């Protein structure tokens, strides 16, 4: 198993502190070459999922 980087360890700890699944998803999406863009895109995706949901 690949060892977690320092920031990954911090984010893991932060995830444990929140119970909101949306917040957990946003924190988990903080990765890649442009993590800021990733969380912004993830928020957009979460909102689109809500409005496109078939009931």
């Amino acid at each position: 198993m690949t060892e977690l980087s320092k920031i990954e360890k911090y984010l893991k700890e932060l995830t444990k502190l929140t119970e909101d699944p949306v917040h957990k998803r946003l924190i988990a999406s903080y990765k890649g070459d442009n993590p800021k863009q990733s969380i912004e895109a993830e928020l957009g995706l979460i909102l689109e999922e809500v409005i496109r949901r078939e009931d």
Partner: protein
Amino acid sequence: MKIESLTIRGFRGFNKEQPIDLHPALTIIYGPNSYGKTSITEAVEWLLYERTSKVDRGESKDEYKGSYRNCHIDSAISTSVKVCFSGDEKKTEFEAELVGEEGMNKSVDGLAVEQWPIDADLGAVSKPFIMQHALKYLLLVGPDQRFRGFAQLLGLDELGNAQSDFVSLCTKPESSIPLDVSLFRTQIATIENRLSLRPALKEVYSLYKKGKDSLPSLTTCIWKECTNRVPEGTPRESVLANLLRIRDEAVKKVFPGRITLAPFSADDKTSDSADLQYFVKFASEDLISKYCELVALTTRDTIIKQAEFYNLGVELLKQQPSECPFCGQKLTTAVATHINNQHKEFKEQGERSSSLLNQRQEISDTLSDLKRRLDRCQQRHMSRLVTFLSISASMKELAKILLPKHEPYIQSVHDAIAQLQKVKNNLDRDYLNVSKALTAVQLSVQQSKEDVTIMKDLGQSLVTYSSQIASSVPVISALVSPMSDANEILKHELDSAAGTEDISVLIDLIEKQKEIEKYLEVESILAGLKELRKSVDQYVGSKMLDAVSNEMTADVMGWYDQIRTTGDPDVHFSGFDMDRTKKGDIKSRRVQIKASSYGKDLVSAVSSLSESKLNALGLCLSIATNLKPGCPFSFLFIDDPIQSWDEEHGTQFIDVVRKLVDKGKQVILLSHNKIWLEQVRTGCRSLNGYYYEITSYTKDGPNIIQKAWCSWEQRLDEVDAILKDTTADSVRLQQAEEEIRLVVSDLTSIIYLKKKHVHRDPNKLNSMLVRKSLVECGVPTALTDRICQTFETTDNSHHITDYTAVRERIKRYHCWAHELAKYVQ
């Protein structure tokens, strides 16, 4: 890792390649301001981190663009920095070559590498560089910048960046909201706005504002309000229909029309795309060719009759092949062959005409299919336009309702009618043309009067019609939203005039119940971002607090106390903390630097401490973080540390330098203060480090000259003092012996320069080179032999085993050194 030497070429202030050897304990570099001192520090920083903190922190990146490369360097020569590291008894040379403006090619001992082979996360440990601009960056800046500076210093910068990114997302989520979600929110917010203006629906609004958690109560309340407005006993499933009926009846009395311009649905778009493609490709070469082939069917009847005639003849000939069955004449072989050939040909022609009949049927079917598709397409577009344009007959009444309050809306409806009437006329015209062309083709097929021209006309009219449809779509689409807005305004005005506003809002609430649920969920997610921000702030704050408040405070305080002088007024740094709210929560990104005076806490160190104390504090902060475990570097560059300090603080700092060396750090000290550097050399005499002076600066770069750490006279005086000190221990005696070796090297170098006019670096002389040099200079052999003896007990290799400092031996060495000194004098 210590640095043995570094070589700089074409980097920042350096043009021509210059090697600089560094002493394992202390190297001092003097140079007036702007003589390229900081370029030395930056060269090593750039090599290790691929960028310098000066560029990193520059507010305008453009101003620093291309600043790594020296502006005078020959364009054919590359910019490079080489650093020879020593550690674990081996040397490794790192070389960085600038690529483009900011790129870097790396190699280790001549072999290209992707990353430096350093066993540590460089982003997580403090940089081994203490620079003035870095100190100011930590203290005399706004809270956020200070936080970033501390985060970087403590290896928390990635976490600090993550916090910034989350704060940005949570405080300004609008930029991350997709367009369809924004439009959706605007649409539902309109209902919310209307609801807020209905006093009779106050309870509904109040529950609505409570958000998604109150959805069940909200739904109950809405239905309660609805049932109150329909006849008693109306079943629930009929409530909406009743409300619609009540509203429509009331509104129709005021005005029966609507401004309706339906948007293109996804199905509409799919159908259009398929139809237009079909129309444009309809009159293909293949179809035209098949269509033209049908001309052959005009002679079909004659051929069939001829074929039947020959069939009969051939059948009869089977009984009497040599006689004509009709007249009984004898048939020649040639005639019989002719009959058979004719029969065969008519038979084949007959078969071909059957196939053509099928072909005609297929073409007829294709034309019918085209007709159906055309009608369907026209209907789809016309119905939207006709529905909308029906309002044009009621514009006078509409104007009465909307004017003068909503003049822009009535104007936009007028404009839309004009535009869409034109679109409709064009579509009607082109549809009529294409219909005519189609009918002509169909008739030609029915009458077997196929003509390539009319088929091509059909193809052309289809292309024109398709183009008209395609160009009408964006015109209509652009008007959908403004007409929808106008209709909403009309609806509100009609509701207002008919007294059906409450019912109208309730209808929307029921019809859009699912959308409202989704809207409240979206709003809840967006509102929840505040909570996420708080969690991130508290978490990052607590991490920073852990890092700054305990160990770091003690470490920094320890170093700060070294620089405090007895005469200082009692206004001092008293520790680090994080700012807090009244509730005790950690404030976001605010590192507090505490200060106290005579036992009382001051507001902040930044506002209370003098610049010199803040400077000292910044220095201590950097030193403390550099000494933390985990740092792979044993060297520390300290660039102009004593700016704005008084003399006493400067003197105190010399002890700090010595302590850093004692702790195993290789210190590289750079300053423009020559007098202070002399004091450092005196204070650190026994370290016998390297001393460089930058004597001038030209476009070739700085002129760096290595100078003696101290004069040979000073060294001999020191030895003399040690020998006279009867209490001097073995360590002091060993120091005296070491001084003699340095004196001998210095003297040899000076004699050689005088006699041979060649400089020999005294730091690189050993017993053999000293002997050779002295012999060449004509120093008597007996004295040369004695001088070389001094190396037997002072060369490093002899110190490893069995070394004992012997006072008498050192006295002899001292005398011999004085004898050699006479050759200099």
